[in-house]
């Protein structure tokens, strides 16, 4: 039976390759000599009606922001306004990156405008839009720090990262060639100043910090932290993953950060697209602006132009990043303006606090802002999450950050209504009230039942060709 059953739990949609597989000969049928071409090509080919059904059905087997609440901590799965899609689809914006500056003044105007908005929001002096994702932004920021230290004749070898930080921080610093010094979390869940003092040295290139941190706590000692790092000759890097909590209320630049990245697919509502594309613009202080990737957009007498910053680190993307994403971020920021941005952070924090109040879970660390880490206590957080699926919601991020036992890191975002939060709270509590056996059998009302991920990893089947070989 080939098709998804409507309204049926047991949904299934056959693979493209099960619908059609056709082999065409290439050799002898192309305008090229045979020694330049492949022999044949075997691919599925679907008619448009078949294609439409295939992907419509697949889409119906997928959770999304428009399906229901999506409270993944640190992911900021907020509502993505429709109109920004229209703006991104403007055919006048569909231009080749090698066009002359003179012929793409509209494109450059928008990029310049977004650079400016982001600089204002972050309290930064200059912003590059080139990094195509948050992790790419981190890498860019750390490469800028590296270039700065090298330019000062003071190359360094270490980047300090709190244990509670996102995994990308560690990986990005390592990718830039640094040794990563992990800073254990303080008892109150924040940076322990003594530990930081102990960690910094003349090898400290930077401290990477998320603020509010990954359990939603604001690093109250940020001024002292900045002093410690700066006094050691290091730079302070701001991971923008949690910027949604502070929009219009506090700015990394004002806190002493030298470099930061923004996750526009989190904070600025560009859709996540099942894992990307996003964009990870990087903001820097005046002092670091000369190291920004090339090219950069500037305005001269009402005309926009591209130039290479004097000591540019070079490039982190083939061209200038994810244009379609950047346009949406611009439109979102401009739609909200000051008042909208402030309301966003207020409601993001209110929603997290309200939801936390509504559920019967311990929350070890507070006062939190836009997200909180509840603990499943004696239960397995991952099992509780599977149970929540059967109550019609997407569960939070589980088992992370690691210093919170059986963590359920929850970030409802500002876009959930009180009614939706009440539903979500009910699902939290209902899953927790289920028996261990029930949780282990969950989910049962979803497209697929519990999937054995360990088994999938033991015997990786990564293509239909692999499935075919298996049979």
């Amino acid at each position, binding site marked *: 039976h080939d098709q998804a059953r409507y309204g049926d739990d047991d949904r*299934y949609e056959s693979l*493209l390759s099960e619908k059609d597989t056709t082999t065409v000969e*290439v050799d002898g049928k192309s305008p*090229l000599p045979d*020694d330049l071409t492949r022999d044949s*090509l075997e*691919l599925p080919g*679907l008619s448009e009606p078949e294609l439409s059904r295939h*992907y419509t059905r*697949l*889409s119906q*087997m997928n*959770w*999304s922001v428009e*399906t229901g609440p*999506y409270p993944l901590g640190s992911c900021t799965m907020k509502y993505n306004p429709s*109109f920004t899609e229209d703006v991104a689809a*403007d055919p*006048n*914006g569909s*231009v080749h990156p090698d066009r002359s500056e003179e*012929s793409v003044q509209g494109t450059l105007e928008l990029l310049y405008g977004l650079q400016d908005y982001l600089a204002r*929001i972050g309290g930064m002096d200059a912003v590059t839009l080139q990094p195509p994702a948050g*992790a*790419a932004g981190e*890498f860019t920021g750390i490469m800028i720090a590296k270039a700065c230290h090298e330019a000062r004749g003071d190359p360094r070898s270490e980047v300090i990262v709190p244990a509670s930080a996102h*995994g990308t921080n*560690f*990986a990005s610093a390592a990718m*830039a060639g640094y040794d990563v010094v992990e800073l254990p979390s303080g008892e109150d869940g924040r940076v322990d100043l003594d530990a930081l003092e102990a960690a910094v040295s003349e090898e400290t290139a930077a401290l990477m910090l998320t603020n509010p941190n990954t359990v939603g*706590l*604001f690093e109250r000692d*940020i*001024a002292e932290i900045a002093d410690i790092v700066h006094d050691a000759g290091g730079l302070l890097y701001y991971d923008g993953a949690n910027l949604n909590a502070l929009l219009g209320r506090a700015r990394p630049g004002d806190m002493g950060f030298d470099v930061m990245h923004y996750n526009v697919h989190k904070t600025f509502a560009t859709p996540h697209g099942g*894992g*990307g*594309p996003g964009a990870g613009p990087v903001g820097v202080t005046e002092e670091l602006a000369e190291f920004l990737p090339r090219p950069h957009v500037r305005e001269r007498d009402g005309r926009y132009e591209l130039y290479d910053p004097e000591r540019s680190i*070079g490039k*982190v993307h*083939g061209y*200038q990043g994810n244009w379609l994403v950047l346009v949406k971020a611009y439109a979102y*920021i401009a*739609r*909200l*303006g000051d*008042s*909208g941005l402030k309301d*966003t952070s207020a*409601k993001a924090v209110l929603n997290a*606090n*309200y939801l936390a*109040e509504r559920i019967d879970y311990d929350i070890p660390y507070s006062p939190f802002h836009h997200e909180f880490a509840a603990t499943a206590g004696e239960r397995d957080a991952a099992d509780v999450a599977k149970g929540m*699926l059967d109550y019609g919601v997407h569960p939070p991020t589980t088992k992370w950050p690691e210093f919170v036992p059986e963590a359920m890191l929850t970030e409802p975002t*500002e876009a959930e209504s009180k009614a939706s939060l009440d539903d979500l709270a009910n699902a939290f509590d209902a899953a927790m009230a289920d028996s261990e056996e029930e949780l282990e059998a969950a989910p049962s009302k979803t*497209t697929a039942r*519990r*999937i054995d991920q360990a088994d999938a990893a033991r015997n990786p*089947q*990564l293509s239909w*060709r692999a499935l075919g070989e298996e049979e």
Partner: protein
Amino acid sequence: MSEGGRHERVAGSPYTPHTPEQTAEMLAAVGVDSEADLFDVPSEVRFDGDLGIEPRSERELRAELTSALAKNDDLTEFLGRDHHSHYVPSVVDDLSQRAEFLTSYTQYQPEIAQGFLQALFEYQSLVVELTGLPVANCSMYDAATALGEAARLADRVRKVSGSVVWIPEILHENKRAVLENYVDGTDLAVETYPMADGTVDVDALSELADGDAAMIYAENPTVHGTIEANLSDIGDVADEAGALFCLGTDTVALGLLEEPASVGADVVVGEADALGLPTAYGMGLGLFATREDFLRQVPGRLVGAGEDAGGKRAYTLTLQTREQHIRKERATSNICTNQAWVALRTAMHLAWLGPDGLVDLASQCVREAASLATRLNELPGLKAPVHDRHHFREFLVRTDQPAPAIARDLEADGFAVHVVGDHRLQVCVTDVNAEAADALVAAFEEAL
């Protein structure tokens, strides 16, 4: 001017659902008096100023952005060089923009993400068919970053044997710049090998790439549109040097040109978005495929097939221990958010074309380039193509007169071409601009 609407009842975001009454009720439940009380931010770092960003209504903003983008000149582009344009059927927009795809996150709960997981599994499978290599990831950012990741893969798997990444002297400068950054934290060095009449000088490469080679990178087609005739030989050179052979290409070229696996490619990178994405100012989709041996060294996301508790086939992210969120600084890459949605679109476009459609399209890229080159070559003062090779989509044109001046004249006539030297232009022709080729030739005639 406001469009009105409940969501504009209070000054604030149009995308927060709270009525003032609900806000009050929620604040009371939390036990604070005001929203400001929720923020545990020391006053010295609090921001009380104005960002100076004026909110606009949706209608105003659409008008504003439409008129901004209308400032872009309306040029017919004969541009390529790693960013290619092919017609994307409307159905791809329609289906990929369904909210369930567009507004979903990475598939951390596979039981309610089977749709996207299957679509990515299908994307991987299509790349496997195109390249002949058994492992393809869900995406890298673009061709340049995929090349960077390939070099880092080479560093991990061939660390003992070599430290030089050999790249062709004819390569998009941007790609090299990204590569340099990606290997900056490693012991790898990037060096160039020479080309002969637009394709790899295999003899020279063979001499250069001794035991210190970690990876040899070649492209097919090259950035100048030439088609390599000696890919297997390059593969042999790499083998002999104990280096990885990394081949750069794109999804359309793969439909026609030699299968990478058959010429010994260890890694394939390139632009997958030649299908599925409209020209988007350089936004891309990095193709990444490799051999089974390197499975656990692959950067980025992988979707695998498995079973659910009911014994039904199901899909899930797999081998996540390679990734940064688990392995941190020992991860294969820092990549997290990637280009999944573009991969979805590419798979849709590929399935829409089918194998015959893809071969047709790729063949058209050969024929149109040959035909346009021939016609330009007939004009006095032009030599096209510069290289005596078969070409794919694009080719170099040597100009007697200064190339920048000709390009300016063409732009004034409504055409964009690449200037790649004082007396060299590059012209790219595909299904989307082939009909304007006559007009381009006429504009050239006038510009000369």
